[in-house]
C-alpha cells in the first residue's frame, strides 16, 4: 500500500520551441543531439501545452530554443499564453527578427525580453557565436525592446575569452537601459563540457571578476539589478539547481519531452515522458524522471542529514553524473563531496593551458544528411 502526495504546482516552464539557431555558441545548453525540424511540436500541440501549463498553476512561460524567433507561429503562441493568463518571456539572440515582427510579439502580449550577448567586444562576441554581424543586430534589437516599452534583461555568459571585460559587459547592459543583467558563468554539461578546456577561466580571473561584479552592484544600486551566478567548479556550496529537482520548473524540448532541467537528458538512466502521450499535469505528478530526485528521500550521506538539504536540494544531478560518475551522488561542487578536490583540479588544469579551438554547436554531418 502506498500513499501518493501530489507535488506543489510548478511556477515556471521553459519551451525549447526549436533547436534551430543562427548562432553556434560552444556552451549552448541544447543537447549534443539536436532535435530535427520535422519532429518539432506543431502550433496546435504547443497551444495545448500552454493551456495545460496555465491550468497546472504555472505562472511564467519562457519561450526559448534554439532561437525561438525562427518559429513562424511565435506570435500566435505568445497571444495564447497571454489569453491563458501566463507571463511570457522571450529568450533570444536577437539576430533573427526585425522590428516589425518584434512589434507583433509585443502587441500579442509579450511581457519581457531577455537578450544574450557573447561579449562586449564585437569581434570576440562574433567569434564565440560564430556569426559575423551579430553584435550590430543585437544592439538594434535592444533598442526596439526599450522603444516598445518592454523591460530588457541582458544575459552574458562569462568564460575565459571575455572574463577580463566584465566591467565593459555590465556597462553595455547599463547603456542599453536594461533593468536586469544576468552574469552567468558557463555551466559544464553537453556542449560546454566538450568545450571545457576552451571556456574555463582561471581561479584568479574568476575571483577578480567576482570583485568587479560586487563593486558594480553597489555602484549601480537602483539603476540595474545584477544577478550573478558563480561557476560550480570553483564553488564551495552547491546551487539549488532549478530551485530543486521537480519543485518549481519544467522544460519542454522541441519534440515534446518534458525534463526537470534542460540538461537532464545527459542522465541516460532516466526516461522522459512526452506531451504527445500524456498531459503536463500527469507528467508533473507521476513522471519517473521527476520522481527520481524530487524532495530529499533520494539523497545519500552527507546530504541526507545536512542542514542545507532543503536549501540547495542537493545541487545539480547532471554535474554529479559528469564528475562523480553517478547522478545520485553528492554534487561535487559541495566541499563535503569526496570528489570536490578533483573537480577543482580539473578546472585549474584546463584553465592554465592555452585555450584549444572551439567545437562549435552544430548538427553532426549525419544529422544534416538525414534532414
Amino acid at each position, binding site marked *: 500500500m502506498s500513499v501518493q502526495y501530489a507535488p506543489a*504546482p510548478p511556477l515556471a516552464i521553459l519551451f525549447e520551441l526549436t533547436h534551430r539557431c543562427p548562432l553556434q555558441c560552444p556552451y549552448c545548453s541544447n543537447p549534443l543531439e539536436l532535435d530535427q525540424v520535422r519532429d518539432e511540436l506543431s502550433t496546435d500541440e504547443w497551444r495545448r501545452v500552454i493551456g495545460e501549463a496555465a491550468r497546472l*498553476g504555472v505562472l*511564467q512561460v519562457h519561450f526559448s530554443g534554439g532561437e525561438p524567433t525562427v518559429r513562424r507561429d511565435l506570435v500566435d503562441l505568445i497571444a495564447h499564453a497571454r489569453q491563458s493568463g501566463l*507571463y511570457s518571456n522571450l529568450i533570444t539572440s536577437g539576430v533573427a527578427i526585425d522590428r516589425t515582427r518584434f512589434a507583433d510579439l509585443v502587441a500579442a502580449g509579450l511581457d519581457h525580453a*531577455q537578450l544574450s550577448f557573447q561579449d562586449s567586444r564585437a569581434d570576440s562576441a562574433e567569434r564565440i557565436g560564430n556569426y559575423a554581424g551579430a553584435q550590430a543586430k543585437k544592439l538594434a534589437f535592444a533598442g526596439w525592446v526599450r522603444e516598445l516599452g*518592454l523591460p530588457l*534583461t541582458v544575459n552574458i555568459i562569462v568564460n575565459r575569452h571575455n572574463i577580463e571585460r566584465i566591467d565593459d559587459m555590465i556597462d553595455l547592459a547599463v547603456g542599453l537601459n536594461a*533593468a536586469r543583467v544576468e552574469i552567468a558563468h558557463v555551466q559544464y554539461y553537453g556542449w560546454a563540457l566538450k568545450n571545457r578546456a576552451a571556456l574555463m577561466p582561471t581561479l584568479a580571473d574568476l575571483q577578480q571578476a567576482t570583485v568587479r561584479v560586487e563593486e558594480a552592484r553597489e555602484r549601480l*544600486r537602483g539603476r540595474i*539589478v545584477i544577478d550573478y551566478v558563480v561557476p560550480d567548479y570553483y564553488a564551495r556550496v552547491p546551487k539549488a539547481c532549478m530551485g530543486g529537482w521537480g519543485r518549481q520548473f519544467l522544460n519542454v524540448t522541441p519534440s515534446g519531452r518534458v525534463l526537470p532541467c534542460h540538461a537532464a537528458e545527459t542522465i541516460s538512466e532516466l526516461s522522459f515522458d512526452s506531451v504527445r502521450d500524456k498531459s503536463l499535469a500527469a507528467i508533473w505528478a507521476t513522471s519517473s524522471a521527476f520522481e527520481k530526485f524530487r524532495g530529499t528521500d533520494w539523497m545519500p550521506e552527507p546530504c541526507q542529514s545536512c542542514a542545507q538539504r532543503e536549501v540547495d536540494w542537493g545541487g545539480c544531478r547532471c554535474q554529479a553524473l559528469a564528475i562523480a560518475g553517478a547522478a545520485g551522488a553528492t554534487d561535487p561542487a559541495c566541499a563535503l563531496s569526496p570528489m570536490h578536490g578533483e573537480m577543482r583540479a580539473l578546472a585549474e588544469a584546463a584553465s592554465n593551458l592555452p585555450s584549444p579551438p572551439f567545437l562549435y554547436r552544430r548538427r553532426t554531418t549525419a544529422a544534416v544528411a538525414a534532414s
Partner: protein
Amino acid sequence: MSETALAVDSMPRLAPGVRLHFDETRQAWMLLAPERVLMLDETSLDIVQRCDGATQVTALIDGLAQAYSADRAEIDGDVRSLLSGLIEKRVLQI
C-alpha cells in the same frame, strides 16, 4: 540592506513588464515580473494597489493608516521599506 531614501512626494507605480495577477491555483494575488514571482498578502496587495503613479508616498501612508486605524508613525517605516525594496528590485518605479 540599504535604506534607500524614498522622497515623500514620489509617486510609485508598477514598473514596465510587471503585472498584478490573481492565481486561481494558489488562490492568491501575485506580482509577475521579469524572472520573479511575488506572492502578496492582503496588506501588501493593498499597498501595491495604491501605487497608481498619482498618489504621493505621504498620502499613500495616510490612506493606509486611516484604512487600518493604525498609528501612522508606527506603519511609516514598514511601508517605506516595503516600497524601497520593491523599487530596488525594479518591481515598482518612481
